[in-house]
């Protein structure tokens, strides 16, 4: 699983590299775009994911101890928190759509600052690509958690055999890791900028 996560690091890394390059080239546009992000929602999502990581870790721990019921509870909690994240994200996306911040024919951006409006479209393109890819990975994660729940209910895990739980845990934490970097990069670092 670690090797697979290496590939995921490189996969997301390509987008991070693109983001970095464009941020350096179109700094003002990046600031303008960044300042329209809703920090509160982003922060809530960060907290949600951190909690889900805790519940995931507890699920792995319970599986290792052979505690089926606790494992199920923790897995369900993780799943719920994951859906909460996706829900908040959906709210955010809807907000962007309503404010004409989605690139495409509907795009219309107005904000103070000395920037080229076309470049803001790129910021939002990368925003949607990166958070969208992240959300897609979360959906896959939710699927994996559901599979674990079913397998656990059937009594497939024990202190001797619980590596699937551990592997899914690694994947889930990885998705959390990506968000830990997405949050400051997209929401925070230009939030307060004096021009």
């Amino acid at each position: 699983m670690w090797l697979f996560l290496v590939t995921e690091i490189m996969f997301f890394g390509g987008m991070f590299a693109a983001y970095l390059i464009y941020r350096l080239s179109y700094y003002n546009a990046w600031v303008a775009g960044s300042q329209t992000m809703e920090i509160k929602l982003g922060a809530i999502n960060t907290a949600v994911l951190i909690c889900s990581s805790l519940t995931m870790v507890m699920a792995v721990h319970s599986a290792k101890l052979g505690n089926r019921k606790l494992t199920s509870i923790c897995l369900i909690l993780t799943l719920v928190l994951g859906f909460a994240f996706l829900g908040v994200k959906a709210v955010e996306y809807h907000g962007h759509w309503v404010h004409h911040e989605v690139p495409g024919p509907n795009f219309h951006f107005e904000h103070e600052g000395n920037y080229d409006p076309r470049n803001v479209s790129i910021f939002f393109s990368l925003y949607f690509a990166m958070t969208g890819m992240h959300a897609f990975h979360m959906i896959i994660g939710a699927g994996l958690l559901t599979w674990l729940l079913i397998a656990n209910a059937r009594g497939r895990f024990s202190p001797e055999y619980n590596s699937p739980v551990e592997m899914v845990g690694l994947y889930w934490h990885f998705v959390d890791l990506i968000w830990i970097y997405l949050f400051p990069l997209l929401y925070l670092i230009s939030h307060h900028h004096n021009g």
Partner: protein
Amino acid sequence: MMETASHTTEAKTNYLNADYGVKSWLLTTDHKRIALLYLGSITLFFFLGGFFAMLIRLELLTPAGDLVLADTYNKLFTMHGIVMIFLFLIPSVPAVFGNFLVPMMIGAKDLAFPRLNLASWYIFITGAGFILYAILTGGVDTGWTFYTPYSTTYSNSNVITAALGVFITGFSSIFTGLNIIVTVHRMRAPGLTWRRLPLFIWANYAASVIMVLGTPVLAITIVLVALERLFHLGIFDARLGGDPLLFQHLFWFYSHPAVYIMILPGMGVISEVIACFSRKRVFGYDFIAMSSIAIAVLGFLVWAHHMYVAGISTYAALIFSMLSFFVAIPSAVKVFNWTATLYKGSITFETPMLYVFAFIGLFTIGGLTGVFLAAVGIDLHVTDTYFVVAHFHYVMVGGMVTAFMCALHFWWPKMTGKMYPEGFSKLSAVLVFIGFNLTFFPQFLLGYMGMPRRYHAYPPEFQVLNVLSTAGASILAAGFLMPMIYFAWSLQYGKDAGPNPYRAAGLEWMTASPPPTFNFDETPVVTWEAYNYDEIDAADQNKGVEVAG
């Protein structure tokens, strides 16, 4: 003690006859059967890519663009590239011979994740399906490199379908690489230390590292291209402030290491075969092993040498140029070490060895012309001409396909238990060599004189060389078609090979041909160094077996 205890009778169960029926093949988790599944599929794709090549060469017989329309020609060279690279070259040695041999060479029963291995093949076929669908519904005309903004904005062809196909086959590559890395780390037989491993393992391991680190970047690049084409995002679109060059950076970050994915396993094959037919340990084992790793790492540092004239800064071009010179060094180390292996060896000229000599010569030419291209000053003149085309065909066909044929001939007896007719195989090796040089050497001259690549028409003064090239291509085609015939023939009428027809070193030769499903009757315990040909030959002489040389 070189042969397995049980002397095989005709009826002994091996992996081929262990189970019958389509389901037993399509649902197998035996790495050897999966290797054959790959072999069958990539052979088909090789001939498909060859078909496109034939149309290209036919068009280029005459200066005017008279066989096909310009747009069609664009589709031909695009599909030739996509099919040959993604559906043949990238899987070729790792997925066929890597799958078959890696567990056997380390004394294991199978790869680390057998079901993932089968999934890998199905993913490969799915991706190939998308690409075939793209071909059948009108093709793609962007060039296999999918450069933006043509691919994202202007092309009218099936870019997304083809790109999706490539994306999916990328996962096949990643999973195979993952499997090989874990297998080599965790499943070696007792006594088999890293420095006793065959160099084929080192080569495939290094290639697998590249697969794991590089392919995901191609994946994300393709995703971004698809998103941009669908939603007009503008990441690579200059009208929206995007940079088309960013696509090229991301694309070549994978695609340059990809060429090392293609060639490293081939180099591993050469190491094995040259040792066998010189009856000598490979010279400088440590250096060859380390050079495989070096190529894998350095290969990631040079990608922008594909972009010297695309608009990158001159300073960046200089940096990449210098790095590109460095990456040639480990390859040169290998060539010198192979040559030194020949020195004072007992050389015989069986068919695999003919391919080895072809490889060393042709790869050296291809590699050296690569160094020429690394120099920015030269590249300015010959970039996007036939010089580049000749260069990469020398390394990929003269290098990689030659190594693939070498591997096919060397391990065919192990995989099928049958020997192929040596006379015909030598003839086809010679045909391939002659045909190849006749096809591609004129292209160096053409490129140097200025004929651009990807053009379906050219000035009349280039015709003679183009005709030579097409003539060579037909000889090359014959050279590739012959093995199809005699290999098929050998399955029915070939001589029984026995476990070790070439008296080669390596664990894979210490079990029956074809091997039993779980490879070894008992797990071997390795107490000897790799390439112990002196011991093998001494033991053979004591037994009265004829020793080469």
